[in-house]
């Protein structure tokens, strides 16, 4: 069940990333920052006895607000500069989570985040939580699907293909970029909230470079601008480390082995199959 829940969370997170990285073509390496902000928002609100649903929505909104902030700062940057700026944004958020000890308890992390259940339904906690997560995942997927198939969604693809032409057609580039980043960050914030309640303990190390490599490899493996690809890739990538448990590898090796697998996989896809599984666009 834990694995099903994690897949649901990472599908939501990675679909969000695919909206910026795949559809709009923004080299966004700051997605984990929104994930982290969402997780901390939800954790802190829940521990202050706010209901789960409220914490979930607020997490999405703080994610989206940070997305707006990031795009306000960076909307004129392109290519390598954009990648670097979004990466330093995630590093800034990470350093803040580490050092703002009054709020986040720094490296000690936040323990004891409650797991919500379904009202009036008697099921094992993980089963009912899996239902919640999968429902939210389905809503996100449907929303992303409708959005990207709509005329509005085609504007995002146009943003990726030719920004100058789009602006010559009288479209407001900044507004498009901002909406794109905010929706993507909203997904990440929601996923962060779900993540915090599932693990019941969070600390800043979950929201940094290794995680960036993990979700980037999901999106690149699935294929840029392919939602179905992202879902398949999430399942594949989250299942791979499970094989390590069956191979009886000592526990202290499993920790570093996971990022090694994700990173090698990402390099291999980039070099040998830049379109990913179902991608319409080459990522190189």
């Amino acid at each position, binding site marked *: 069940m834990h694995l099903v829940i994690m897949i649901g969370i990472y599908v939501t997170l990675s679909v969000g990333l695919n909206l910026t990285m795949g559809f709009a073509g923004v*080299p966004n*390496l700051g997605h984990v920052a929104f994930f982290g902000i969402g997780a901390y928002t939800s954790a802190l609100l829940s521990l202050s006895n706010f209901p789960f649903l409220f914490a979930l929505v607020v997490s999405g909104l703080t994610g989206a607000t940070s997305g707006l902030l990031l795009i306000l*700062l*960076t909307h004129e*940057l*392109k*290519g*390598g*500069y*954009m*990648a*670097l*700026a979004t*990466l*330093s*944004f995630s*590093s*800034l958020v990470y*350093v*803040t989570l580490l*050092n703002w*000890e009054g709020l986040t308890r720094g490296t000690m992390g936040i323990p004891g985040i409650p797991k919500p259940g379904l009202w009036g339904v008697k099921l094992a906690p993980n089963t009912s939580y899996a239902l919640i997560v999968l429902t939210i995942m389905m809503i996100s997927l449907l929303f992303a699907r409708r959005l990207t198939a709509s005329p509005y969604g085609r504007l995002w693809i146009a943003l990726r293909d030719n920004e100058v032409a789009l602006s010559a057609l009288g479209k407001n580039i900044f507004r498009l970029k901002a909406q794109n980043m905010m929706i993507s960050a909203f997904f990440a914030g929601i996923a962060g909230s779900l993540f915090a309640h599932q693990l019941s303990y969070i600390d800043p190390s979950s929201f940094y*470079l*290794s995680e*960036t*490599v993990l979700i*980037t*490899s999901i999106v*690149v493996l699935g294929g840029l601008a392919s939602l179905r690809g992202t879902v398949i890739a999430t399942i594949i990538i989250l299942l791979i480390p499970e094989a390590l448990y069956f191979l009886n590898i000592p526990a*202290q*090796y499993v*920790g*570093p*082995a996971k*990022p*090694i697998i*994700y*990173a*090698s996989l*990402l*390099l291999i896809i*980039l*070099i040998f199959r*830049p379109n990913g599984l179902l991608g319409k666009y080459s*990522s*190189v």
Partner: protein
Amino acid sequence: MLLLQLLINGMIAGSIYALVASGFSLIHSTNRFLHLAHGAVITLGAFTFHTLFLLLDLPLYISALATIVATSFLGWLTYAFIYSPLKTRGASRSTLLVASLALAILLGNILLLLFGPDPRSINFDLPGVNISGALITGLQLLIIIISLIILIILFAFTKWSKLGKTMRAVADNHELAEISGINSKKIEITGFIIGSAIAGLAAVLITLDQNIDPYMGRELMIKGLTGAIVGGVTSLPGAVFGSYFLGLLENVGILWLPSSYKDAIAAVLLISFLLFKPTGFFGLNKKTIND
């Protein structure tokens, strides 16, 4: 003499950052992408040196030389097996950057797997010097001097030698250099190898002076990157200046900020320069990181 002590600490930190940033900047200017695994290459060098010098008990000079050879070789390997195939496919700069990030995570975690997370150190020291109340160990003095010598050699090399001039030509305008008959592929490899050799030297000095652990590449990369961006990533003297600037600012900043925020200074500096002055103090050409 708190201020003097902080200035000295800033110079020591700045010297290390300058070595990191100059290797990084050399690779960037010849290859035109950000090699974010540079910090991880240094970390690998640090563990190589630690193993050779402390565990195998080899003499200092031989271990240091072997470390430099090892990182140069690693630089060549990454170029030949990762970046070169990607470039042949026509990968964009952001893709190369993502690949280098993946490589950084890969190398860091391989070290974690081999050596475990605990910090290691070499107790190596030379008699210290006392400058009107501020302390500096002999080793730290040596770090500052060696860094300065290397940086001057590097500067002279790019400024006056034929290969160095060719490198600058490729950095300045890749297409034009190709047209004039320069083999840019060869220059890219050379840039990678020299940059990684400087990484090896940085690794030796860091290992002699500080604790090392598999995570340190991340921190070093941010510091070197910040130094390079602040100074202007296309300009080698700029990158060196930016690194000393960062080292001094971090250490003197303790006068006003709680010391736990020391590492945040680099992140704030990096992001503000990227947003407001992406060419840094000395960089000229804005196009160079833009794709």
